[in-house]
């Protein structure tokens, strides 16, 4: 199986889907001539031409609204946000139109559209450019929210998102684009709404998604040296949540730690805790622990930026807490 970078896997998914379906087009800032701010659309303008690879002005609300309209009449737009921080401008189109058209029209209209771009901290970009905003969108019925961690999932889920009949928001990551991994060639479609046990274990379930997945795997390796067997469950899709996978794992291990890059209050992890406490109460051996970004705006200074985010030592400490091994 070829090894690709996360950005190359996305590029492959886009190219394959555009070849498969002439209704698919890509729009966004710098996606054409510049080959993408993060080179996800490298070479696509040459391949598909400017009618399908469209350079947009710096006007997120405008090109998002235009694409929502295009989706209503039969096209399948992929809207690239340079980062999700800038997509806040387009929130009205996403939340009030894309998410609600099917409902407001009594099923007469549909909105098969993908919004995608990097989320989370990039590295020394300070507070306006370092936000993990997926929890905001996971709040809305009518939207699907995905956040794959690996190149293979990135390809398979983008293909599934483009084929979905409803709006899908895909959270990538500036620090994920260069990560390499094996990616199946050709028709590799990962169903939305399905979590994935990336590492099996018996003592504790670490639940996560997107970039935090790598810290969790690192923590699991370290814990294994101490004889603690951690299961890493990659949610991949944040709406709808894969309740079945969450409950099956927690029922096996009796303990859970949820790792989330974003802030804790009203985070996705809070909803995961709610599922666990209400449906697996009798299987819990300890209160569920969460490791989240600190409840502050992101600092510019590298040391403070690192301190603000979850990392392996913080995850290890939380695992030991649910295992009652503090200070052990």
């Amino acid at each position, binding site marked *: 199986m070829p090894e690709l970078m996360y950005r190359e896997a996305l590029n492959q998914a886009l190219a394959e889907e555009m070849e498969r379906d002439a209704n698919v087009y890509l729009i966004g800032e710098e996606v054409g001539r510049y080959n993408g701010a993060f080179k996800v659309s490298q070479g696509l303008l040459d391949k598909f031409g400017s009618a399908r690879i469209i350079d947009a002005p710096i006007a997120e609300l405008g090109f998002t609204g235009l694409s929502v309209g295009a989706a209503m009449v039969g096209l399948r737009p992929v809207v690239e946000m340079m980062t999700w921080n800038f997509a806040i401008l387009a929130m009205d189109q996403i939340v009030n139109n894309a998410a609600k058209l099917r409902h407001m029209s009594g099923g007469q209209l549909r909105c098969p559209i993908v919004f995608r771009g990097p989320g989370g901290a990039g590295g020394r970009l300070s507070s306006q450019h370092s936000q993990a905003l997926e929890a905001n969108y996971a709040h809305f019925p009518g939207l699907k929210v995905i956040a794959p961690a690996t190149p293979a999932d990135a390809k398979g889920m983008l293909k599934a998102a483009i084929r979905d009949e409803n709006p899908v928001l895909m959270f990538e990551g500036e620090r994920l684009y260069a990560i390499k991994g094996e990616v199946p060639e050709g028709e590799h479609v990962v169903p939305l709404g399905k979590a994935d046990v990336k590492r099996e274990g018996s003592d504790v379930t670490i639940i996560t998604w997107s970039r935090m997945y790598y810290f969790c795997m690192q923590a699991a390796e370290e814990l294994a040296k101490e004889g603690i067997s951690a299961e890493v469950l990659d949610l991949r899709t944040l709406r709808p949540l894969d309740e079945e996978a969450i409950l099956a794992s927690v029922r096996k291990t*009796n303990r859970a730690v949820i790792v989330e890059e974003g802030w804790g209050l009203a985070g996705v992890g809070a909803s995961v805790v709610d599922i666990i406490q209400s449906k697996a*109460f*009798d*299987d*819990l*051996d*300890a209160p569920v622990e969460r490791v989240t970004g600190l409840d502050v705006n992101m600092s510019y200074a590298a040391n403070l930026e690192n301190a603000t985010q979850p990392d392996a030592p913080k995850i290890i400490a939380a695992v030991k807490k649910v295992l*009652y091994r503090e200070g052990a």
Partner: protein
Amino acid sequence: MAIPIQMPSLSPTMTEGKIIKWLKKQGDKVSSGEAVAEVETDKSNLEIEAYDDGYLLQVLVGEGEMAKVGAPIAYIGAKGEKVGAGKQAAPAAAPPEQKPQPAPAASVPSGGGDNRIAIQMPSLSPTMTEGKIVKWLKKQGDKVSSGEAVAEVETDKSNLEIEAYDNGTLAEIVVGENQMAKVGAPIAYLTAKGAKAAPAAPAAKPKAPAAPAPEKPAAAKPAAAPAQAGGRRVRASPVAKKIARDKGLDLTQVSGSGPSGRVVKRDIEEALARGPAAAPAVKKAPAAQPAPGVRPEPTVLPLTSMRKVIAQRMTEVKPGVPHFYLTIEVDMEAASKVREEAKAMDLKVSVNDLIVKAVAMAVRRYPKINVSLQGDKVVQFHSVDVGIAVALEEGLITPILRDADQKGLQAIASGVRELAERARKRALKPEEYTGGSITVSNLGMYGIDQFVAVINPPQASILAVGAVSEKAVVRDGQLAVRKMMTATLSCDHRVIDGAIGAEFLRELRGLLEHPTRLLF
């Protein structure tokens, strides 16, 4: 004429009973059929009913005290009647050695010739020898009516209130707050209603029984610790509670290693691995912290009524019934699958439930095992009633699941759970633990591989079941890893011969190894 209420025989093995609580007070009106007291037998707690109408004239056996079967525990008669005459007329049925004991909690005249009545330190628990007055709820000179609480006392188990048994005025407090008094010692005196309160004269009254402080705190502590745990809420994680409930483990006997002593999964696993005997020791260890250089004295506790009966029965049964033992190994792969399938359907069926079902069906097919030697006769049963040994904090009991061969797995599972739960609450009715064809005793959850059990007469056999664990076995000339279980049948050789037991076990093994046969 005063008529005695006698301690009734409430179970086939009962020789004496303990009064847990009087439901009527002296002076109360009582009608025939009405419950007057709650009594603890060797098996369960039951109510005693009055057989006559009248007034409860005198309580002879106080709460927490024992009385032999047939012994009078109280007198009933006409209102205001004196007991004296009636006492002598106690029916001949009462054992001759019985003596109406004065209830320690009752008030007795102080003997000083005046109308002062002593309030004594009552015995409030079977292990209580003395009690500490925590607080006086009445002051000297206060009016007191019968049934009213006068003081709060701390026993070895808990804090309880002492009630007055007479109306009057609290004339004198002999034992002050935070002072100890031996059971039966006067702690205060009442002046009867209408009489003038005697001036408080502490020096005139004997104070001897009042001990200033506990003398041996080190020795007293270990006894108190587990008892306290019984009363308070046990902190435990949900999954720890679930496992404890499934395995019949008493959470109060497990020491918690989590925050604030929370019992967590690993504590339960460790307790189960150690086995039942070790579990209470876990609790005691942290409590017994003698001063350096002082060896802790062993605690001497009186036998509980259940323990006493177990001790007596086991000494009789083991030499009295000639046991022989047959052991089989059973491949439990298929039975484990049945359990998993039940689990997938959200049905709670344990391995033990499967065994109970298989035992019942094997008994049905081999009725020669379904017998009992009673005197010089052999009784052949026609129903299959299976006993299930349930471990309790102070001993064990074997509730009987009736017609187990007729029941489906789910009915067996819920029936066993329900019986075990009530057994633990000591709420079984006598007919629920007497008789039976055979008993299943399972120590598998404690990790026991194999053991032999003592027959529980009038039953003639008992099946001792060990843990299901993976073992290397030979299958078709090849080594294979299979889930195996060892079971040992103890038989009463007077009525069951080796071949009968062996045939029964062959059938049992067949049923467990091919559980679809349980359907037919």
